[in-house]
């Protein structure tokens, strides 16, 4: 038994849920400046729906209990309804992350009963949102869809991408969410991935901005709903519950989805651990080559666990930050590790 006991068997602070995150397509009606998957109107890459369905079934068999569909714009993926029905049939909770512009009443009706939480991207005030999305109609079109969505009874919320420049807009986002009946505001730090590498290289929030975001989450949460969540790990969490981050206790024959989360299916068919864009040497493989259940059985977790331990040691050390984005830090360690192996 680890010093931290048996409470945490999951790599990553995901609340103990085994999550399958699926990016079935990189096609999108927008080309957002911060898009980590480099999606856009002229990007056609996608995974056939039958393949995604099989991945969902396999993931459920591996212990995953949540399906999160992102993109690209999931509403442009023709097989979205099929995939969601598969997941619900397998007993999974489902979430879809969308820019909200295409949420017509017909699409809302189609999603009703298939989606447990609909997450809509919202990057701040209408002006900031439109600027980040590269479309002056991005906010008005999305906002115009919300009254029907709220009336439909589908639970929805907003995902706010925190940058180095926009924590002061979080209060506006929370008030807007409250006004339109959203149940959730999730604050997710910008990742230097995809288009953000070129467009927003200096905008990844540092520890000061993360701290202010945490203060704002605490402050604005006192005003009553919506539920607020910030995707950062505190130093206290890292020190108090290392098993939660390191999968110290998983049994050799434990199903993968019960201790490694999220599993991420990218639009090229590759399944990677933890976060989109994870270096390919750590990937489980491609579902175009073999089913997920086979990839999981073949996969050697030791390189990833080594990376997780290195990351934890760095962050939990005397010079570690008070708050951090765990997944981004693991990704950085993995890339440095891959680079050092390549150089050697």
């Amino acid at each position, binding site marked *: 038994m680890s010093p931290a006991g048996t409470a945490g068997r999951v790599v990553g602070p995901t609340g103990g849920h085994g999550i399958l995150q699926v990016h079935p397509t990189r096609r999108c009606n927008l080309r957002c400046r911060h898009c980590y998957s480099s999606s856009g109107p002229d990007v056609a890459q996608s995974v056939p729906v039958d393949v995604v369905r099989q991945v969902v079934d396999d993931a459920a068999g591996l212990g995953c209990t949540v399906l999160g569909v992102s993109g690209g714009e999931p509403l442009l993926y023709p097989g979205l309804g099929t995939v969601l029905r598969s997941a619900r049939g397998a007993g999974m909770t489902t979430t879809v992350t969308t820019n909200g512009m295409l949420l017509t009443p017909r699409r809302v009706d189609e999603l009703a009963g298939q989606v447990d939480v609909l997450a809509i991207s919202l990057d701040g005030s209408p002006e900031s949102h439109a600027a980040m999305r590269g479309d002056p109609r991005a906010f008005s079109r999305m906002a115009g869809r919300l009254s029907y969505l709220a009336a439909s009874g589908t639970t929805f919320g907003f995902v706010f991408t925190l940058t*180095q420049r926009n924590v*002061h*807009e979080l*209060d506006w986002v929370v008030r807007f969410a409250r006004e339109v009946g959203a149940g959730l505001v999730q604050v997710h730090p910008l990742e230097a991935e995809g288009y953000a590498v070129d467009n927003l290289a200096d905008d990844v929030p540092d520890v*000061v901005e993360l701290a202010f975001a945490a203060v704002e989450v605490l402050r604005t949460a006192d005003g009553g709903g919506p539920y607020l969540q910030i995707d950062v790990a505190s*130093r206290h969490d890292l020190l108090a519950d290392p098993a939660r981050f390191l999968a110290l206790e998983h049994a050799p024959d434990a199903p993968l989805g019960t201790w490694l989360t999220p599993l991420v299916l990218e639009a090229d068919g590759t399944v990677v651990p933890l976060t989109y864009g994870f270096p390919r040497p750590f990937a489980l493989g491609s579902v175009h080559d073999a089913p997920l259940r086979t990839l999981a059985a073949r996969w050697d977790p030791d390189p990833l666990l080594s990376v997780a331990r290195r990351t934890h040691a760095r962050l939990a050390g005397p010079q570690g930050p*008070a708050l951090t984005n765990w997944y981004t830090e693991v990704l950085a360690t993995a890339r440095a590790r891959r680079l050092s192996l390549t150089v050697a």
Partner: protein
Amino acid sequence: MERGSARLLDDWKNGGFVLEERLIERLLKSTGSLVIDSWYIKGQPRPDWLHTSFDVDGVEQCGTVVKDIAATLGGLGLGRAGGIRVFPKGIPADVFTIELQVGAP
């Protein structure tokens, strides 16, 4: 370009944001498993001054806690006196009492 937090501080000052007891309590809890010896909060109708003290074990934890608090609270920009003081206990010092004050008494 300006940090978002700089704009936020301006918004707080202009909007009259002052300390809320629950906020500070949660901030301290989020900082670590600290044993809080005492704390006093003043201000009517809403608190705007906090004084608290708590003990931590060892130089390493002391430095970490002070750094964390400074990072989280030090930039609140309330425009009044405030600060963190550290008192070593024991020879050699193995316990430190940290006093935190935000706002003016």
